C-alpha cells in the first residue's frame, strides 16, 4: 500500500516547509497528523474528499467567478491536510496583530482629525491627501469610541527562515471568515479521530464575538442595538459569507433597497412598517454606500445614509475612509506608525517594500524588475501584479512604463518564497504548496482574535498566488495547545 508522505519532497533546503524541519524529520506538532495519515489508504482519503465536497456543495458554499457572460459558481477548493500552529507561535501572531491594528486605528483617527503624523513628517502628506481612499469629507467626523477598523483581516506569510511577516492589511471589507468556519466543520466531519487527538482551539465563537463587537460600537441607546448586515446582493462573489454571518449572528441581512433614511435616521422596511437600524456591518464599498454622497449611479446604497452617519445616528462597520490605511503604499509605513503612536517596536515585521515615489527606490526597482514583485497599490485579488522571476521581458517593459507614469500607484517587494505546506494535488500526490494566513481581528471595547484564520493555498505546482480568483484554495488552520 502506497502511503501518504512517503514520496513527499519537502525541498527543505530551498523552502521553509511547515511540516518538515530543515534538518529533516517532521516538526513535533505534526507527528500525530503523520501517524494518523499513515493509516489511511488513498481510497480512504478519496472518500473523505468526497464527503467534504458534498458538504460544501450542498451547503452552497461557493464563490462566483466573474469575467464570463454569467458568473459561474465554484466550490472554493479545500485541501484536506490541516495546518498546525503551536500555541507559542500563535501568541506572537496575536500580539503582533493587536499591536498593528491599535496603531492603524490611531493612525486613522489622527488622519481624520489633527493629522499630527503628517505635521511631524513621518509620512509624506501627499501620499495621504492624494490617495483615492482618503475621504476628505470625513475629516472631523468621529465614529463611536473613535474606532474605525472593527473587522480586519491582515495577511501573514512566513519567509525562507520561517519568520512571520505581514504581507498586507485588509481593512475595508475583508472576506473569507466564513470559509474559516466551514473548513472547521468539514474537517470535524471528515477526520473526527485526528481532530480529537489534538487540542485544537475552537473558532466557532467568531460570530458571537462579531455581534458583540458590533453592539459595542453602536450609537448610545437606551435599548438593545439593532444590527444588520448590508450586502450588495446574491450576485456578489462574497454573498455566501454575508448571508452566513447574518445567519450565525441572528441578525437581518439587508440590501440597500431594504433601508430608507428619514430625518437622518436609518430604517429597514418590514412587512409591519419601518424599524430603526443602529449598526450596519456593511459589505458594500464606500463608493456605493450613498448615491447622494458618492457614486450617484449606485443602486446598492441608501440615499441619505451618510448624513445619518455624520449625525451619529448609525454606526458603519468598518468606518468610512479606512481604505486609506490598507493602501499598499501606506502599508510600508505601518512599522513607523507603531513607533510613532505606541512607542513600541513592531512584533511582526513588514515585508521590505520599495516605493517608486522615492527616487533612490525608483532606480533600484527599475534595475531589478526581474527579481521583484510589483503590486498596484489599490488592486486586490491578485490582479495588477508583476511577479519578476516568472515574467517575460515584455511584461517587465510594460510595468516599467506603468511605474514611471504613475509612481504613486505601485510598490515593489522582494520575491519571497512563501513557506510551503504538504497538500493533496489531484487527490493522490502530496505536494508542497505555498501558503499564507489570514487571521481576523475584531475591535470593539477590546480586541479579539479567534485562534486560527484562513490558510490560503496556491494549489498549483510552484505557484505563489493564493487568491481564490487565481485558482487558490484553503485549508483548516489548527492552533493547538501542546
Amino acid at each position, binding site marked *: 500500500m502506497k502511503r501518504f508522505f512517503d514520496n513527499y519532497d519537502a525541498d527543505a533546503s530551498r523552502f521553509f516547509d511547515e511540516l518538515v524541519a530543515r534538518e529533516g524529520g517532521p516538526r513535533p506538532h505534526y507527528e500525530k497528523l503523520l501517524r494518523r495519515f499513515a493509516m489511511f489508504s488513498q481510497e480512504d482519503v478519496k472518500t473523505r474528499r468526497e464527503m467534504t465536497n458534498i458538504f460544501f456543495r*450542498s451547503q*452552497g458554499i461557493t464563490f462566483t467567478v466573474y469575467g464570463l457572460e454569467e458568473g459561474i459558481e465554484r466550490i472554493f477548493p479545500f485541501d484536506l491536510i490541516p495546518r498546525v500552529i503551536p500555541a507559542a507561535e500563535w501568541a506572537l501572531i496575536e500580539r503582533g496583530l493587536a499591536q498593528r491594528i491599535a496603531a492603524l486605528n490611531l493612525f486613522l483617527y489622527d488622519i481624520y482629525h489633527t493629522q499630527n503624523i503628517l505635521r511631524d513628517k513621518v509620512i509624506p502628506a501627499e501620499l495621504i491627501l492624494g490617495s483615492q481612499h482618503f475621504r476628505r469629507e470625513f475629516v472631523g467626523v468621529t465614529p463611536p469610541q473613535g474606532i474605525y477598523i472593527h473587522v480586519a483581516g491582515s495577511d501573514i506569510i512566513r519567509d525562507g527562515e520561517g519568520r512571520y511577516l505581514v504581507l498586507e492589511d485588509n481593512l475595508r471589507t475583508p472576506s473569507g471568515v466564513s470559509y474559516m468556519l466551514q473548513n472547521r466543520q468539514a474537517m470535524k466531519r471528515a477526520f473526527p479521530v485526528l481532530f480529537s487527538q489534538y487540542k485544537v482551539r475552537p473558532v466557532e465563537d467568531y460570530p458571537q464575538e462579531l455581534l458583540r463587537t458590533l453592539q459595542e460600537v453602536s450609537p448610545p441607546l437606551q435599548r438593545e442595538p439593532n444590527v444588520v448586515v448590508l450586502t450588495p446582493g446574491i*450576485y456578489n462573489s462574497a454573498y455566501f459569507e454575508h448571508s452566513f454571518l447574518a*445567519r450565525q449572528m441572528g441578525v437581518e441581512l439587508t*440590501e440597500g433597497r*431594504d433601508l430608507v433614511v428619514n430625518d437622518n435616521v436609518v430604517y429597514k422596511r418590514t412587512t409591519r412598517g419601518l424599524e430603526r437600524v443602529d449598526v450596519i456591518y456593511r459589505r458594500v464599498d464606500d463608493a*456605493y454606500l450613498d448615491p447622494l454622497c458618492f457614486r450617484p449611479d449606485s443602486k446598492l446604497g441608501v440615499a441619505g445614509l451618510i448624513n445619518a452617519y455624520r449625525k451619529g445616528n448609525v454606526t458603519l462597520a468598518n468606518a468610512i475612509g479606512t481604505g486609506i490605511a490598507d493602501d499598499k503604499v501606506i502599508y510600508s509605513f505601518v512599522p513607523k506608525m507603531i513607533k510613532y503612536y505606541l512607542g513600541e517596536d513592531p512584533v511582526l515585521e513588514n515585508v521590505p517594500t520599495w516605493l517608486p515615489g522615492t527616487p533612490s527606490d525608483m532606480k533600484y526597482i527599475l534595475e531589478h524588475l526581474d527579481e521583484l514583485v510589483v503590486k498596484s497599490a489599490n488592486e486586490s485579488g491578485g490582479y495588477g501584479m508583476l511577479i519578476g522571476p516568472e515574467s517575460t521581458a515584455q511584461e517587465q517593459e510594460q510595468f516599467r512604463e506603468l511605474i514611471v507614469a504613475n509612481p504613486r500607484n505601485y510598490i515593489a517587494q522582494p520575491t519571497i518564497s512563501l513557506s510551503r505546506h504538504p497538500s493533496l494535488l489531484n487527490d493522490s500526490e502530496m505536494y508542497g504548496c505555498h501558503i499564507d494566513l489570514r487571521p481576523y481581528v475584531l475591535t470593539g471595547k477590546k480586541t479579539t482574535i479567534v485562534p486560527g484564520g484562513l490558510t490560503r493555498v496556491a494549489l498549483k505546482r510552484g505557484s505563489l498566488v493564493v487568491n481564490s480568483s487565481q485558482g487558490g484554495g484553503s485549508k483548516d488552520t489548527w492552533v493547538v495547545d501542546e
Partner: protein
Amino acid sequence: MLSRVAESLFWMSRYVERAENTARFLDVNFNLLLDLNRITTVETPDCWIALILVTSDREKFDSLYGQYGAETVTDYLVFNRNNPNSIISCIGLARENARSVIESISSEMWEQINNLYHYLQTVTPQSVQNDPFSFYREIKNASHLFQGITDSTFPRNEGWDFVQIAKYLERADNAARLIDVKYHMLETSHAGHGDVVSGSVDIIQWMAVLKSCSALEAFRKVYFARIKPQSILEFLILDRTFPRSINFSVCAAKDALWRLSGGSAGRSFNSADRLIGKMEAELSYTTMDDIASKGLHSYLAGLEQGIMDVGEQTHLTYFAYHTPEIEPVEEGLRTTFSGNGGKRAEWSQAQQQQQQAYCR
C-alpha cells in the same frame, strides 16, 4: 420581517409549486398519449398544445418552435431557460430567492432546493426522453420533500404564512387553468371525433385531468366509478377536503392571509384580506348549476383574475418597497407585482439584472 425577505419567500414557494405542477402535467400527458394511441387516432399535437395553453405562452412557443410534439414541448417546458416558467427556470428562480433569504429559512430547506437545482443541471433532454416517468417523479418528490421539510423545520411565523399564501395561490391558479384548457380541448376534439370513440376518449381525458391534480384516487372515494365531467368539475373546483382543489387552496390562502393581519370574517384589515374572504365565501356557496349558468370558461377566468388580484394586493400591502410619506415616487418607477400569465417572472428578472450589473 423585511419586506424583501417576505417577497422572496413568497416567490420561492410559488416557483417550487409551479415546477411541480408543470412536471405533473407533462407526466400525465405522456401517460395519456400512451393510452390514447391504443384506442384512437387522435392527432397528438392537440394534447401538446394543451400544455402550452396551461402555461399561456403560446405566442412565445410558436416563435421558438412552431411545432407541437413531445420533443419541442418538453424542451420548452423543462429545459428552456428563456421560458421563465420552464422547470429549470422555476427551480433556478426558486433557488435564487431561497439564496437571497438563506438566513431566514432552515438549512435543510436550503439544502433541498440547492440539491434539486444541482440535480437539474445534470439532466439532459435525452435522459428525460428515455425515462420521463423517473424524471417527473423526481421533480414531484423533490417538491413534496421541500414542502415537507418546510412543514417540519420552518417556524410558524410570518414567513410561514407567506410561503403558504404563495403555494396555495399558485396551486389554485394552476388548477383553474388546467380545467379551463382541458375543457376547451375536449369541446373541440369532441367536434371532430365524437361520433366514433368519444365516450372512451372523454373518460380517459377526464381521468388525465384528475391525475394532473393527483386527484383520481381521492375522486373515486367520493364518487366511486362514475367518472362524469360534472362530478369531476365539482370535485376539482368545489371540494373542501381535497388539498389540490380550488376551494381548498383558496381557503388555505385565506387562512394564511388572515393569520398575517389578524383579520377574520367581517373584519378585514386590508384589500388582500377582503378579496380572498370574498372568493372563499363565493366558493362555499356556489353550486355546479351556478357555474353552468355563468359558463365554465368565464367562471374560471373570473377565478384566475381573483387570484391575481389577491397576489397584487398582497404585494402592495406587504412587499411594496415604496414608502409614500418619505419618498414620493413617480407612478411609473414603482415596483409592481407582475402577477400571473405569460409575464409572470418579469419582476424577478428585472431585479436580478440590476444587481448583477452593479456588482461586477
